[in-house]
């Protein structure tokens, strides 16, 4: 076989078709495409890609199996380290992690590791391959996991495999955390999330929805019942611009907007009861993945013009390159170097006043600092969505003073994920602030190791 020099792009539905529905944008590789892409891998012995993976998937080994058309084996290799490959294959920022470290990135285009991971996971699901088995030996100890997002899933999965009895407590009515309320259907179909979570149940993890730890039951209650508690309650607390007019009608936080659409299926209103406003001209404020998700959702809800308003330039946007490119292809308009200063309108938002910015010296984040110029422009809008970031969920620290937090409200842990309260561990966004799915999973892995170590050596 002739090795293709350039990377095989993951097939996507055409932009004009995909903006009309909420179905998945990327189609995924065929077997042939996957094998071809996998054959580009040079199988370097020092495996730099693995160092870029927060959960340490043995990437060259799984890619070798894909090349050999041993797809089930490839899937098994990934599953050794990653319990939810169909999800991470879709939403990981590979270009900043594994693919960034790929040798081929230096001389051309890196291997499409994410697309191959997704391929292996989808292939296994479509072929009914399940390798999740209950452990043979039980530890006789039980663990409570607070939150069923990416961090909680890894902790639960790792500890259940080691033979612990794990119960996951989820506040919402379905498990999955940000994977179900935050990430849109067109980027991560909920069916995929539920399939992956089913595997967790298959290995004996008990998931209880509708339980808010800190309200329904306390961490103290959990410590009476369980040998250890892991807190992965996330960073779902939205930040605000604190500018005039912010509480006008039809101004959403990205979390409200996405929760209504993703979790409550407002895009199917009135078949589902939860409504959402479908605007004609929508402004989304922010430059991260959440902003891209909100903007592309607005487009699919029928908006004629959607603006992403960002105070720096395209280069500084924290969103994944692939998602920015998807948004551009779909016709999202970008207004760079502008900062919202006021929402205008009577009861509903009618316009957004923006101040033009210029870039100055780098700030503490290493990115050039936006500097106000005093010049303003005003755009007419009928919906606004703010996606300017999140604070850690304050509920558990507030109800559990023994758990110390830093000045940003993040739970303080040692490097092995122990909080300041005995037998209580934490990870994910509640510890790191705003991270990615895979970073949260990395913390889950660390916490699971520590919990196992502490419970077996104590």
């Amino acid at each position, binding site marked *: 076989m002739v090795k293709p020099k350039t990377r095989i792009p993951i097939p996507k539905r055409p932009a004009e078709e995909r903006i009309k529905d909420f179905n998945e944008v990327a189609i995924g590789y065929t077997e042939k495409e996957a094998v071809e892409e996998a054959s580009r891998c040079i199988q370097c012995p020092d495996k730099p890609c693995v160092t870029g993976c927060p959960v340490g998937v043995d990437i060259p080994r799984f890619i070798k199996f894909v090349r050999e058309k041993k797809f089930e084996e490839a899937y098994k290799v990934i599953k050794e380290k990653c319990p939810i490959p169909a999800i991470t294959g879709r939403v990981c920022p590979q270009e900043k992690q594994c693919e960034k470290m790929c040798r081929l990135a230096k001389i051309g285009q890196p291997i499409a590791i994410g697309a191959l991971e997704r391929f292996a996971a989808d292939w296994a699901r479509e072929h009914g391959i399940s390798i999740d088995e209950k452990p043979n030996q039980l530890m006789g100890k039980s663990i409570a996991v607070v939150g069923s997002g990416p961090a909680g899933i890894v902790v639960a999965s790792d500890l259940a495999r080691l033979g612990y009895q794990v119960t996951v407590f989820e506040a919402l009515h379905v498990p999955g955390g940000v994977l179900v309320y935050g990430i849109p259907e067109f980027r991560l179909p909920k069916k995929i999330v539920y399939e992956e979570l089913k595997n967790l149940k298959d290995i004996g993890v008990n998931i209880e*929805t*509708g339980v808010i730890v800190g309200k329904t039951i306390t961490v103290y209650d959990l410590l009476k019942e369980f040998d250890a508690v892991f807190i992965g309650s996330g960073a779902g*607390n939205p930040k605000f611009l*604190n500018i005039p007019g912010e*509480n006008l009608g039809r101004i959403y*936080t990205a979390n409200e907007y996405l929760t209504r659409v993703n979790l409550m299926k407002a895009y199917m209103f009135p078949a589902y*009861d939860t409504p959402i406003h479908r605007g004609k001209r929508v402004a989304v404020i922010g430059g991260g993945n959440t902003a891209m998700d909100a903007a592309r959702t607005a487009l699919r809800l029928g908006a004629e013009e959607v603006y992403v308003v960002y105070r720096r330039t395209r280069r500084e946007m924290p969103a994944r390159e692939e998602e920015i490119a998807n948004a551009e292809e779909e016709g999202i308009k970008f207004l760079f170097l502008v900062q919202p200063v006021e929402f205008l309108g009577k009861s509903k938002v009618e316009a957004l006043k923006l101040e033009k910015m210029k870039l100055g010296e780098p700030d503490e984040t290493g990115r050039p600092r936006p500097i106000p110029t005093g010049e303003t422009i005003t755009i007419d809008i009928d919906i606004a969505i703010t996606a300017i970031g999140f604070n850690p969920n304050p*509920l558990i620290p507030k109800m559990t003073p023994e758990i110390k937090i830093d000045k940003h409200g993040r739970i303080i842990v040692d490097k092995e994920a122990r909080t300041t309260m005995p037998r209580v561990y934490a990870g994910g966004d509640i510890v790191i602030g705003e991270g990615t799915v895979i970073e949260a999973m990395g913390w889950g892995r660390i916490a699971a190791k520590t919990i196992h170590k502490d419970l077996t050596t104590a």
Partner: protein
Amino acid sequence: MSFEIIGKKSLAEGIVEMDVHAPRVACSARPGQFVIVMACEECERIPLTLVDWSCRDGWIRLVFQEVGVSTYKLGMMNVGDRLYHVVGPLGNPTHVEKFGVVAVVAGGVAIAAAYPIARAFREAGNIVVSFIGARTSRLLIYRDYITKISDEMHISTDDGSEGFKGFVTQLLEKRFAEGFKPNLVWVVGPAPMMRSCSVVTKRFEIKTIASLNPIMVCGMGMCGACRVRIKNEIRFTCVDGPEFDAWDVDWDELIQRLSAYREEESYALKLFLESRKVKGG
């Protein structure tokens, strides 16, 4: 969790009392807190004040008015059915201590929500003077419960079918003018009624706590749908409230935000009621 309906009663036309098996919630509930329920998978998440509960028997009691599609669907459920989802208790409990004389003011379906709070104030040794109001006498739900735990009871109806003819806040104002001066006023009801109440109590300089009822989605501080302006700062009713000092609330903004989905709601309700007719309901 089963969330089985174990009791159901019609209190007045369109107002339903429901007992739901929810042992974890029942054992943590305190006066002033609420739950979010979903009658079905397609239903909205509805915040409802906890009206009563029993940790020993594992139930919570809810009272709601059928106003939108999801509350209609909830009202159609019967003993033995299971709610799709119940989460709680949410929000902060009412701050209860011995203030002296506490006036509890409630309007409409919220009279039921006032009951556990009035009871808690009474149990803490306060003299409880209750003011309840509704459109007409048939809608004075929970009157007997409130009467039983109140030292004094005042009733108003818009149509004068019982008690004072007019709004409950007018009745309150009348009593203030006659020299009634409680140490605290606690109010729950429709937002315009609470706004009027805060105007009256401010004039008579009587500290007032209001239990707010904005549109809410998540109920746990994640989405920001229930944000309210308190002393010009954004606060979340679900995690910072639901109770705030009534004088600090930006009532106009709250009332405006409450009307956000009025068109969508009436459209959906019309469709729903028509579909029920077709099905021979």
